[in-house]
């Protein structure tokens, strides 16, 4: 599996550290309640198919990258900087 870092280009998967589902970028409000925090920390859609997850380019530029990939074929479909995704999420928030 090779992953395209938005900054460094296509690199070996071994340069990246997998953190988990990209839902991690959507941290709920501290007062959002037990159910919201349980969903954020533990519960997962866990799809067999396309998923979005968060990888760190720890063996390269250190950027956090949101990777859209297929969990059945291991095909990497798209990558974007997590900082851009997080900024979009902040803008979309009411």
């Amino acid at each position, binding site marked *: 599996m090779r992953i395209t870092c938005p900054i460094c280009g296509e690199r070996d998967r071994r340069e990246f550290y997998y953190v988990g589902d990209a839902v991690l970028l959507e941290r709920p409000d501290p007062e959002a309640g037990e159910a919201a925090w349980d969903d954020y920390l533990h519960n997962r*859609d866990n*799809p067999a198919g396309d998923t979005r997850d968060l990888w760190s380019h720890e063996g390269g530029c250190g950027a956090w990258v949101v990777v859209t990939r297929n969990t059945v074929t*291991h095909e990497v479909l798209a990558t974007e900087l997590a900082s851009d995704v997080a900024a979009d999420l902040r803008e979309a928030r009411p």
Partner: protein
Amino acid sequence: MRFSGLRVLKEGLTGNKGWGPHWRDPEPKAEYDAIVIGGGGHGLSTAYYLARNHGLTNVAVLEKGYLGGGNVGRNTTIVRANYFLPGNSEFYSHSLKLWEGLEEDLNYNVMHSQRGLINLFHSDGQRDAFARRGNAMINQGDDAILLDREGVRRYLPYLDFDNARFPIYGGLYHPRGGTARHDAVAWGYARGADRRGVDLIQNCEVTGIDIENGKVTGVQTTRGSIRARKVGIVVAGRSGQVAAMAGMRLPIESHVLQAFVTEGLKPVIDHVVSFGMGHFYISQSDKGGLVFGGDLDFYASYAQRGNLPMAEHVMEAGMTLMPMLGKAKVLRSWGGIMDMTPDGSPIIDRTGVEGLYLDCGWCYGGFKAVPASGWCMAHLMATDSPHEVAAGFRLDRFRSGIGLMDEEGTGAQHNLH
């Protein structure tokens, strides 16, 4: 058909013409008292114990492929009871006791071999941790012997004891640990359940779960709808998808774990050996192949095959521990889908839907749990209350933070187990 030495002899002398199928291939009925989704090790043992322990024989096991085609046929066959935490240790202790009587109970040769398991340690700190674990095992009523370096050398003379990075200080020896023939475990439970009247229905994929007024009423399948007031989801790596049919999201992420086997060799490794610092463990099958594996590939995957970096890592760890491995040729490798929970411990529990039960989250340790998991899941489905040795496997422990069972002490977080 009962198996016995006499029967084998008789069949051998008469051309082996008397053997029949081990189980029926029934059409699904319109209604059952209970349905178990998933015809793997855990699902088949659940059905077996529903019939054996609770007299529930109007039961169906629904399997989307063939019996035992998933993780029960893909693991590295290790059986042990060396857990540390209360909640886990009594459960795996119970499981090992069931293993010890399994062949007589099932009248089936599962080739359970208590050849002993040795976990190696490489520092003073690790020795202390293993001594503590050994004491916990002894307190639980199981067996553990702390071996020093010479003690390990007596059993495993072929290891590299003076490795520069991980010199071997000793090992924790668990004599009752060992291996079993994994497919035979699935077949033995299947045959046992079938003989008690359970319908084993293959090529029958569940496509929906029927719920009315908060109660389960049946399932939709590729072979029609089937009614039941009790439904158990026992589908390992596919738990997330099946639970989604009931509107649930689970604290589970599915990962791929690889395993490897070499060509058949003469007996060379008598025990199960684990090299935790290198994420490597190995045993030798009765056919002679060296069966070994390592850690997860560490990203969400349903591929049933892994990537090359972990294959390379496992080979390197094996060569570090036992340089003689370099002479063996790897025959094949494969992967299984592990249902990973945040704390690394399983779930056997009710759900928010009445009559719908969940048995999942076995991470990479489900094989040894097959007997006790079925025993406890059957108890839960039959009585609607958790079995005492599985009382800690609650689904809500993640939300509440109460009763988390984190054997590795790394925190209840995905991707740390």
